[in-house]
């Protein structure tokens, strides 16, 4: 379809809106109410352009201009809102004329008459769409001489989001966002006309995804309360990285100021999180700056009873050398949290091999992993039937719940252009009726997904799975749906996945029977990557639960077995419970400060980049392994991200140092893969799931309570 924008004729796909045609032509038009991934509504009326199209006569041919002999353009009498105008073949759009500029400036004047213009005290200043657009397209002055509208200013909508009703320009992005993306209608306009204001009728914002409205608000009406007043937008160092709070791997921007992490914002990844984040990932970063330890510490007097005293790395290494000299290297255990990067995991694997120790493990992890290729998140949103067994998706992989909501809406994805995701995709209507019959949820406790499913029951995922395999008559409807579905997906949550190989085998049988895809929600953020490395214990007593070793390095795990009496080296950001029993404390960097690669639940490799956060003398796991190597006079095989990535280049034939921004699905076949993992775990005592590290929201676990109870019981 050919469209002419200000004299430039461009080719755009059918269904393109006029605003996207203008951007596709490399021109700009101001807008406030449109937002990629949301339905266009045409409320702000800023994106005015002049437009006209050729028309066909009664004989079916284009009506020609008598003078020029070219198709005659029939112009709309007035400028049109380009976000709600569908481009058509031969359409002519004028976005840069004087009359368009006048119309836009006039609309800007209206938008600003009731805006308080308190930019100097507004957190949005410097990153404000209204500020930018007023500067670019406004008169620079106002003829409005009356009192501005006064409304409630800066009060907390919830713990995390603060609302300033006076600053609101009524673009309705937040209202549409809640209805369309998480499907939780918690905000709306109240009153009408010039008295219209945004508010919630309920206490707070009962949604797991409320923070996203602070990203999409074009003004400073909805602000992130956690980062409020902690910096101006131009003072922040922005780092594009990936959230490691769960296994989804949302793209984020980490904003640091003066070496301190202050704010996390969503970053677009069409494949993974679109632009959305969960509240845990967005707001749950403040734990990092409280009581963080950034220097090595050793005990006064050299006994565990002694108080901690800060030390240099040299002192710490000297102490470790003295202790480990008495112990056989096979008797050293290496244990880490399962959110380490792939590179750190490889360093751990190689170092364990170098030591010759069987005692290496990562936690939390399930005792078994599936060998089937998981569906991608886009495939989840495109699925025509999803069966969720034993999962609390909103807790285990929150943004996956948004893709399920998208699936219920029919899986319509916005178009993509060279200038980015469609600003206004007219195929996306407001208030889509949810196809609830496409979702079935079974888990022992009711969770948020139950309310969205066509069929949901509080029965254990494992027993439902068992009955499904047995062909229970009670599930006749589900069998029918599974058979009719072209792209069915089964999602297994922690409640089922922790039960071990036999149950996983049942799930694999079920999905193979119906040609479905199986998505097992990983136990921790990088579990799906680490499961392809040799990071599981191989002998009796070598697991993290038993920990029958003379000395152990425990990296960022909260607990060690109560009867462990050996030399304990704890690598962490804070003085955790495990650290209180340690002989030496080694400071750790957080995931926000690391460089490396992270594999999400769909097997997608995503790049972590270190934000400009002052972490003192903290090091990552590779740094600790280097220190241990120093102490033992060994030269570790993997000593940095680059040497690890060289090894992965050999193993996987992929260059992890230059992954595309959207990440890349990794094909692990042909490597020592999950098969090895499964074989190894058959001799493993049990999973190490009592070692849950509370996630970034302290006191609130990523894995739901019921799964936690199951884990504590063990799966042997």
């Amino acid at each position, binding site marked *: 379809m050919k469209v002419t924008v200000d004299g430039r004729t461009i080719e755009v796909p059918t269904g393109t809106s006029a605003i996207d045609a203008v951007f596709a032509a490399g021109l700009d038009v101001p807008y406030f109410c449109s937002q990629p991934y949301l339905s266009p509504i045409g409320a702000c*009326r800023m994106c005015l352009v002049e437009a006209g199209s050729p028309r066909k006569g009664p004989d079916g041919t284009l009506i020609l201009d008598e003078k020029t002999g070219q198709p005659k353009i029939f112009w709309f009498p007035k400028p049109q809102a380009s976000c709600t105008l569908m481009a058509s073949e031969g359409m002519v759009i004028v976005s840069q004329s004087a009359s368009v500029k006048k119309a836009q400036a006039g609309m800007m004047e209206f938008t600003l008459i*009731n805006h308080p213009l308190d930019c100097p005290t507004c957190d949005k200043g410097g990153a404000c769409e209204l500020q930018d657009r007023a500067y670019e397209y406004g008169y620079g002055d106002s003829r409005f001489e009356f009192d501005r509208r006064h409304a409630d200013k800066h009060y907390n909508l919830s713990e995390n989001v603060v609302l300033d009703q006076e600053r609101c320009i009524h673009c309705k992005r937040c209202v549409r966002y809640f209805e369309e993306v998480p499907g939780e209608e918690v905000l709306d306009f109240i009153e*009408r006309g010039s008295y219209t204001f945004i508010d919630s009728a309920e206490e707070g914002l009962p949604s797991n995804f409320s923070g996203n409205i602070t990203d999409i608000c074009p003004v400073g009406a909805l602000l992130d309360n956690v980062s409020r007043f902690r910096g101006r937008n131009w003072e922040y160092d922005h780092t594009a990285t990936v959230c490691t709070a769960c296994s989804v791997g949302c793209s984020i921007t980490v904003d640091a100021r003066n070496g301190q992490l202050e704010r996390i914002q969503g970053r677009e990844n069409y494949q993974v999180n679109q632009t959305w984040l969960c509240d845990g990932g967005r707001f749950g970063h403040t734990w990092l700056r409280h009581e963080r330890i950034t220097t090595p510490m050793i005990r006064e007097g050299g006994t565990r009873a002694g108080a901690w005293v800060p030390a240099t790395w040299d002192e710490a290494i000297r102490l470790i050398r003295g202790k480990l000299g008495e112990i056989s290297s096979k008797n050293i255990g290496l244990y880490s949290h399962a959110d380490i990067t792939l590179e750190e995991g490889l360093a751990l694997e190689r170092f364990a091999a170098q030591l010759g120790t069987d005692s290496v493990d990562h936690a939390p992890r399930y005792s078994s992993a599936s060998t089937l290729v998981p569906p991608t998140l886009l495939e989840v949103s495109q699925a025509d039937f999803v069966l969720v067994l034993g999962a609390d998706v909103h807790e285990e992989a929150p943004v996956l719940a948004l893709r399920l909501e998208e699936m219920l809406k029919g899986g319509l994805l916005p178009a993509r252009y060279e200038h980015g995701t469609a600003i206004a995709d007219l195929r996306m209507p407001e208030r889509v009726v949810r196809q609830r019959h496409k979702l079935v949820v079974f888990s022992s406790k009711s969770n948020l997904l139950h309310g969205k499913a066509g069929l949901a029951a509080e029965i254990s995922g494992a027993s439902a799975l068992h009955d499904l395999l047995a062909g229970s008559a009670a599930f006749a409807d589900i069998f029918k749906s599974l058979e009719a579905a072209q792209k069915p997906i089964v999602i297994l949550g922690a409640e089922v996945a922790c039960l071990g190989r036999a149950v996983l085998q049942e799930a694999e049988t079920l999905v193979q029977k119906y040609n479905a895809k199986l998505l097992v929600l990983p136990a921790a953020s990088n579990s799906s990557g680490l499961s392809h490395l040799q990071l599981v214990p191989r002998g009796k007593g070598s697991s993290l639960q038993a920990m029958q070793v003379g000395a152990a390095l425990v990296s960022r795990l909260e607990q060690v077995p109560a009867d462990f009496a050996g030399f304990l080296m704890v690598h962490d950001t804070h003085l955790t419970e495990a650290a209180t029993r340690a002989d030496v404390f080694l400071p750790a960097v957080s995931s926000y400060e690391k460089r490396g690669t992270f594999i999400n639940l769909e097997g997608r490799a995503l790049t972590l980049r270190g934000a400009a956060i002052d972490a003192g003398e903290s090091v990552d796991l590779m740094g600790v392994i280097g220190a241990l190597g120093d102490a033992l006079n060994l030269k570790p095989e993997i000593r940095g991200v680059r040497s690890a990535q060289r090894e992965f280049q050999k193993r996987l034939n992929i260059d992890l140092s230059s992954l595309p921004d959207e990440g890349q699905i990794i094909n692990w076949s042909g490597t020592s893969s999950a098969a090895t993992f499964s074989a190894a775990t058959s001799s493993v005592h049990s999973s190490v799931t009592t070692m849950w590290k509370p996630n970034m929201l302290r006191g609130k676990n990523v894995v739901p309570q019921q799964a936690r109870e199951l884990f504590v019981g063990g799966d042997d």
Partner: protein
Amino acid sequence: MPDTLIPPKPITSALDSRFKPSLYARVGIPNSFSLESYQAGGGYQALRRAFAIGNDAVIDEMKKSGLRGRGGAGFPTGLKWSFMPLKDGKQHYVICNADESEPGSFKDRYLMTEDPHQMLEGMIIAGFAMRASMGYIYIRGEYVLAAERVWAAIHDARVAGLLGKNILGSGFDFDLQVHRGAGAYICGEETALMNSLEGLRANPRLKPPFPAQAGIYGLPTTINNVESFCAATQIIRYGWEWYSSMGTEKSKGNKLFQISGPVQRPGVFELPLGATFREMIFDFAGGPLEPIKAIIPGGSSTPMMPWTDTVLDAPMDYESITAQGSMLGTGGLILIPQNYCIVNATWNLVRFYAHESCGKCTPCREGIGGWMVKMYEKLVRGQGKPGDVELILDMSDNIGGKSFCALADACLGPVLSSIKLFRSEYDYLIANGKSQYGGSSRWAD
């Protein structure tokens, strides 16, 4: 030459002996709203005829009749009905827009209180033609008596087998439900009405999709005004030839005109389209009580017209009034007397639109609701400055045609026309701090 070859001159005056009132024929009869009275007058004959000729023939007759929507926009009703996807097998809806809120319009109110069955019959016929099995009547909240009468009529019709399953043995199922609005002018906009009916905030929706593709609950829907449904009843009852014998070339049929302001007999009058303002004002309303300077021809949103012989002798039909720079609208005439300040009168209307703006789009919310009304208040208080009228004109240019729905444009109708016709009054008020017609006004609070 046989008579049949000479087309008879169309009826364009209610004084024409061939003209017989139909829509309002029964208003005034005791108990005109009861089913017995309605049936005694030949009620529900049109429905029987519709069943006899079939649903496609009904749409065809509606198209041929030339009926144009009586809610104000004047879109051809038969064409609108034919937009419904007749064979898609989905649930279809018929909605009656009885949210008559336009200042100056009050015809639907009496149609509902005095002759509700006429409207119900039209809705059943529409439902039959458009394969709908459900209809909603969205009645303005203030119309309490109308809602009660319509409810009672629906009840009587159900009991008599005129609503419900298998109506009159035709095999056609149809039922009606009354919904009372909560007092918002914007609910008269069809998509806002559907939102309100669904329990949502009454904001207009994006079009396309048009209601015939995705209306209420996302299903094909047709919305018509009360008078349009009543006219449908008459058209199907007497045939399209009778209906199109009235009116002008492009504006067929008869219409209810309302008149308010200082006239002898304000009220609702049934005239054929093409009757002149003079006939309406002098022959029916008995003439003005005091000197008049402006006429609002079709409800408050239509631009004012000057009180001149040219205007008075112009036929009241869609085309002629448009040619004169205004609109037929709902046919609600408002006369503005000579000795009242036009700025004050316009302020009264602007206040209404500012109050009724839904707040969805910027030009209406901020332009009308936030600014225009304050400009007028300032002028009326005598605090106007030179340049204020130019500012109002420039604001109007920034608002006009750029808002989401027609509400903002409706407000500009009286604003622009009053400035165009009575600029001297604005200038006098600004220069002297008070109106040349004294400070008081019948519209002041």
